């Protein structure tokens, strides 16, 4: 019953999408200046149908309708309601439906905002976007149908992987999808701008807000994902350069570059070709990332249900998309003709793009290189954190410096006469760096330079903001927040990286171990029955003899019933200075427990700084000049 209704809604959506494509095409050919009312109605039907299908799936999960395969495989009656809902997008089929939903919603809103201004451009965007939507709808219904039936109807579901039952991970996919699936709209808009010979400035102002929205959500999605990894994986880190993480970072680099260069196009009508390229590759890189993650051709922490047929479909879709966007883009014969003054806002924005492309290239090549060596040389290699750190870290230094100076410059041309304060702030940064060093002991040369440059960025932005706040409006607030936030983020990441401490020991109940100035006492162990799992809770007492504090930490080993899984929950005590982080795991066939105790400085600040960076994008979206 539910399955039939769902299928009808999906088929209906396909029919509506087809008719939108047809009518949009007809409408473009007509000389009529007005956009046919039927397209507005159709778009409205489309969004109604697709959202209804999504709500229906949520309904099925909430009421545990196991006649649907997706519900049976990913849910369980004993699961808390929150995770029943999160289970909707915690699997391949449901997440793809969410994907299509976001494409349709963005399409609808973009159309609503733009159709009055430029007929041809809006219609072409609608046309291209709906071709994309059609592609994903066909994928959904042919190979990943969330409304697939099973008979006989099972009485109980298999449950959701407990490691995914976490509030951060529940909201992580929707945030991320709003980011990189949202980028489809400016892919379509870029195609449309070429097809309809749209003016560069108009194109820039119509996509700007969508770039900012997708950038902000992509950033938030990445942050929430990192927080989840930190809390849930129990390894003490928050970024592992895992292929799945990289797949979300690559579009983020594109979006960041685009969010900056679109300003140049809007203000100066420069870089039109480049902005078009960025708009196109953002969505292409999103789909490529999805291909890498879902096809299972990479080894990764996050295991989606892998299926070569899915990989094949996405890859064919991707190839077609690339092919047609190339053809359309190369049809455009207009070359941008412009020149830039070395010291101008344009040049510095371009240098942002330059660094972004470097980071993008590094992460992309690092992610796919193992596939290449395997296919071409039959050797399997790993490209892990040490590679990315050693390639990317040095290039962060000039990036931070440029990022500090760029926003202070004017458009077109400026005689730079702020050398006095520049030198002063540079020296101040060095002095603070020295103070941090002497206070916290050692770190290495590269860390020194990154800390100095991030301090430079923070101080320069602060100084400028204080001066500006006396005279001007708060229009620069968003970029101030994002840039300063990023500086703070880098600063604390490097400090955290250098001053984290880690102790690894095997310990029995009742024992006390002392390493350096830390005394770790394993007080006791108790077992508790909870809603859908049993917990073995350890009670540890940490005594720091030097700093003289005492803390209790309670890590858990959880035994989930459906499906039967063992998870290790870290115990974390957060304060302004540092996190105490402890995980324990049982050692088979012995009374000892393996305990990892970590002291991680400034974790809270890392999260706050990252949120501050993302908040700049959101603020800019809603702040009118």
């Amino acid at each position, binding site marked *: 019953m539910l399955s039939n209704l769902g299928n009808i809604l999906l088929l209906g959506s396909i029919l509506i999408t087809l008719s939108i494509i047809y009518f949009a095409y007809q409408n473009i050919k007509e000389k009529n200046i007005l956009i046919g009312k039927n397209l507005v109605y159709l778009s409205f039907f489309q969004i109604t149908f697709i959202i209804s299908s999504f709500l229906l799936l949520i309904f099925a999960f909430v009421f545990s309708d196991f006649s649907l395969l997706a519900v049976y495989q990913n849910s369980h009656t004993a699961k808390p309601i929150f995770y029943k809902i999160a289970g909707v997008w915690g699997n391949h089929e449901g997440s793809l439906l969410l994907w299509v939903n976001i494409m349709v919603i963005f399409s609808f809103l973009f159309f609503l905002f733009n159709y009055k201004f430029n007929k041809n451009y809006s219609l072409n965007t609608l046309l291209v976007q709906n071709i994309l939507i059609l592609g994903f709808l066909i994928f959904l219904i042919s190979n990943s149908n969330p409304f697939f039936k099973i008979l006989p109807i099972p009485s109980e579901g298999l449950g959701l992987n407990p490691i995914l039952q976490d509030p951060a991970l529940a909201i992580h996919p929707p945030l991320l999808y709003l980011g990189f699936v949202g980028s489809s709209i400016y892919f379509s808009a870029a195609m449309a701008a070429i097809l309809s010979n749209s003016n560069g400035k108009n194109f820039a102002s119509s996509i700007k807000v969508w770039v900012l929205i997708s950038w902000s959500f992509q950033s938030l999605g990445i942050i929430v994902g990192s927080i989840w990894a930190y809390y849930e994986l129990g390894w003490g880190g928050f970024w592992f350069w895992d292929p799945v993480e990289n797949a979300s970072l690559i579009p983020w680099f594109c979006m960041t570059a685009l969010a900056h260069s679109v300003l140049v196009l809007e203000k100066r009508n420069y870089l039109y070709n480049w902005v078009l390229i960025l708009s196109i590759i953002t969505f292409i890189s999103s789909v490529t990332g999805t*291909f890498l993650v879902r*096809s*299972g*051709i990479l*080894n990764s922490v996050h295991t989606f249900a892998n299926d*070569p047929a899915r*990989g*094949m479909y996405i*890859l064919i879709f*991707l*190839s077609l998309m*690339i092919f047609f966007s*190339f053809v359309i883009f*190369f*049809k455009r*014969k207009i070359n941008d003709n412009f020149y830039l003054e070395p010291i101008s806002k344009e040049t510095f924005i371009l240098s942002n793009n330059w660094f972004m492309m470097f980071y993008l290239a590094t992460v992309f090549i690092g992610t*796919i290189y193992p*596939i*290449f060596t*395997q*296919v*071409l040389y039959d050797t*399997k290699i790993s490209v892990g954190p040490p590679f990315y750190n050693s390639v990317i870290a040095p290039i962060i230094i000039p990036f931070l410096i440029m990022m500090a100076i760029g926003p202070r410059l004017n458009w077109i041309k400026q005689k730079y006469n702020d050398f006095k304060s520049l030198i002063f702030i540079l020296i101040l940064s060095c002095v603070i760096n020295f103070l941090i060093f002497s206070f916290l002991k050692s770190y290495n040369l590269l860390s020194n330079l990154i800390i100095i440059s991030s301090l430079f960025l923070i101080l320069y932005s602060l100084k400028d903001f204080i001066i500006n706040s006396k005279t001007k409006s708060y229009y620069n607030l968003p970029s101030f927040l994002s840039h300063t936030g990023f500086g703070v983020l880098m600063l604390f990441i490097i400090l955290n990286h250098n001053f984290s401490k880690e102790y690894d020991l095997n310990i029995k109940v009742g024992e006390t171990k002392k390493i350096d100035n830390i005394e770790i006492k394993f007080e006791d162990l108790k077992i508790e029955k909870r809603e859908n799992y049993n917990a073995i809770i350890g009670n540890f007492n940490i005594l720091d003899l030097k700093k003289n504090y005492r803390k209790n930490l309670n890590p858990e080993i959880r035994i989930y019933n459906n499906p039967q899984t063992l998870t290790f929950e870290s115990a974390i005590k957060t304060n302004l200075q540092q996190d105490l982080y402890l995980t324990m795991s049982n050692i*088979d*066939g012995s009374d000892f427990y393996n305990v990892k105790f970590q002291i991680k400085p400034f974790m809270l600040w890392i999260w706050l700084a990252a949120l501050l960076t993302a908040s700049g994008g959101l603020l800019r979206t809603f702040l009118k000049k």
Partner: protein
Amino acid sequence: MKISFPKIISISLVVFVLIVFFLALNIDKRYSTEKIVGKSVDDFEIKFLNNKEVFKKQDLTNDKYHLINIWASWCLPCRKEHPILMTLKKENKLKIIGINFKDKKLNANNFLRELGNPYDFSLSDKDGTKSILFGVYGIPESILIDKKHKIISKFIGPLNVKDSKDILQLVNEK
């Protein structure tokens, strides 16, 4: 369409990447340590299970094949492959070396008493570090070594009837 240098470069790069992706879809991604096959055995010294002496690489004879089997009493698949090892024991061109992996001596001996002892040499690797020399990552694993002490085959997981046929075939070649 005008053909220009950047166009050609970018198109061929993208086509190349896509082709590699297509090829990669059909490759077996499972990890295997078969890379170790063809290499000569490193020098090793491993204690016997039941006495204090050590077995060295030099103790491998030049006239026989050796099958190194890594096992433990706590490992269920080891129990499954044991009958196969018992039949391989009958082949006199082959010596079987058992390395008892991260196990208790008592349990190991009980296991052998219960199911029979197929090993010509019974060695013990209490902390698992010696087995690293043979590229072990999960037991049971078995490694076949020829007369020149070269690794000629590696079996991950429990030996089955087909593996045992393969081993006998390799051992009886010429």
